[in-house]
């Protein structure tokens, strides 16, 4: 998949502002970014459901403008908003979706059985979808996207609303699909998920890419080795940050805590105590993608 200068405009509003990316077969590629960054708009273009305003896009080697149906026949999509038929049963939802792809009934039944097992919905197969819990519906949507055994799987916040066990099941499943050569494109607000699942990812903000790379690489590039998290009484964080400005390479004030970015966490924490500050709680940890995200998306108050 190749995108060059991809632009999506809604009226005067620029939702995607000229992004470039390439995703290889069997790769797992993530889009991170705050609400409204343009992730879903990008996913919809990749899924050949939304035309580009300008730029070029090739998906599975084809042009969405001319080969949309052909491309979509090889794509599985988990849209951000569920599009299940609430009046039909769980199994009928899989049946009818598989029928859109023109799969024979027998094939769909076989696959549905395995997918329902994976989605832990076997017992609910003949129940209507409407009364299922939010997470169950989400699991069904994910199962449904796999019914056509797609070459490209597009997942827009797939695990929102899933319990930890279901998330881990999904991660495992996605990992195995990737081993089989399926290309994954994922958006998520869970940094641990991105770190686990994505070979490469981009951090998107205001329709542009703020950074691109492997999770480890991004952490090295945009954050320090360690982070000290300090919690003071609320309202004090700004003041304390000023006084500690020279202790760390960078300090960041969040509503509920203060983060000090440094190569030596324990050393920095000792220095905090030596200056007579006593935080209510403190923690030294390694940098994660979350720190990269915070830095890149402008959610920083002190730099």
């Amino acid at each position, binding site marked *: 998949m190749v995108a060059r200068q991809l632009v999506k405009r809604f009226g005067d509003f620029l939702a995607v502002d000229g992004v470039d990316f390439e995703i290889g077969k069997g790769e797992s590629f993530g889009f991170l970014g705050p609400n409204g960054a343009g992730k879903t708009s990008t996913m919809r273009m990749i899924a050949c459901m939304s035309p580009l305003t300008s730029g070029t896009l090739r998906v599975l080697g084809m042009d969405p403008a001319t080969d949309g149906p052909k491309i979509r026949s090889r794509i599985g999509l988990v849209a951000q*908003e569920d599009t299940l038929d609430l009046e039909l049963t769980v199994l009928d939802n899989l049946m009818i979706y598989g029928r859109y792809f023109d799969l024979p009934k027998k094939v769909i039944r076989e696959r549905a059985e395995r997918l329902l097992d994976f989605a832990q919905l076997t017992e609910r197969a003949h129940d209507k979808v409407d009364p299922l819990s939010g997470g169950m519906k989400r699991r069904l949507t994910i199962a449904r996207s796999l019914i056509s055994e797609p070459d490209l799987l597009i997942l827009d916040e797939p695990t929102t609303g899933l319990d930890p066990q279901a998330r881990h099941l999904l991660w495992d499943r996605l990992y195995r699909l990737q081993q089989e050569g399926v290309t994954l494109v994922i958006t998520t607000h869970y940094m641990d998920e991105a770190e686990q699942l994505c070979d490469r990812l981009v951090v998107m903000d205001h329709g542009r890419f703020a950074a691109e790379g492997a999770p480890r690489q991004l952490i090295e590039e945009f954050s320090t080795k360690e982070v000290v998290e300090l919690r003071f009484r609320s309202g004090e964080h700004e003041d304390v940050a000023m006084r500690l400005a020279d202790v760390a390479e960078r300090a960041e004030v969040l509503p509920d805590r203060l983060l000090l970015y440094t190569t030596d966490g324990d050393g920095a924490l000792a220095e905090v105590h030596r200056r007579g500050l006593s935080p209510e709680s403190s923690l030294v940890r390694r940098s994660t993608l979350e720190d990269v995200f915070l830095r890149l998306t402008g959610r920083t108050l002190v730099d």
Partner: protein
Amino acid sequence: MTVEAQPVGGERHRSLPTWLRAVRYYAYQYKRTWKGSVTTSFLYPVLYLAAMGVGLGSLVNKHVGVVDGLSYLDFIAPGLLAATAMQVAGNESMYPVMGAIKWWRTYYAMLATPLSVLDVLLGHLGWIVLRLLMVSVIYLGVMAAFGTIHSPLAVLAIPAAVLTGLAFAAPISAYAAAQNTDVGFTTIYRFILIPLFLFSGTFFPVSQLPAWLQPIAYATPLFHGVRLCRGLTEGHLGWQAALVSTAYLVVVFLVGCWLAERSYAKRLVV
């Protein structure tokens, strides 16, 4: 719009055109509601023909004699067939269309698969054809039971009723796909469907209307649907009238399709 099916599961199987796959969706849906729907399709003509055709009809026949050369029952039954087709098509093209976009997002589910916007529209209209077929076959059966069918041409009243319905379904779908609330639907019922039902030659000949209203009545698709159905069941349809009315309904349908495709695309492809 056919996408080649890849051989799946080791067996060859004939690929179904994409728009028919959308029709199949509605068939799945209908499994839940068919009983109530079929019952209504029976009851509606039975009640109407009994009350209006037989009850009111005996009064009309006694005091007025024949209407346009027909007994009142014979006059009204085919008119109601066309009017029912209009109503079914209208009902199926308002809430179901807006709901598939706004509430259930059914169309978006389809559009994530090989189906195109045109397939989504044709699937919807294709399903309406099936519904209209069911309704008009049942209606014609009831008419036969009431003894109001006087020509073998009556079987052609089935496609005539379907065409009448489509001439409403297509433009109304175009309108419904552009709606965000159901306020506009009330307007359609109030200012289009109900007036047409009452004044397009269903219950009395258009010639009874004030002169200035007659051209408007003649221009409505329902008038032409009624004329076709009545002429076919009673066996007095001239070929010129048949041609004009059929052509008129086909044109309204095609223009409606053109509008609907644009309306669907504008709403669904953003």
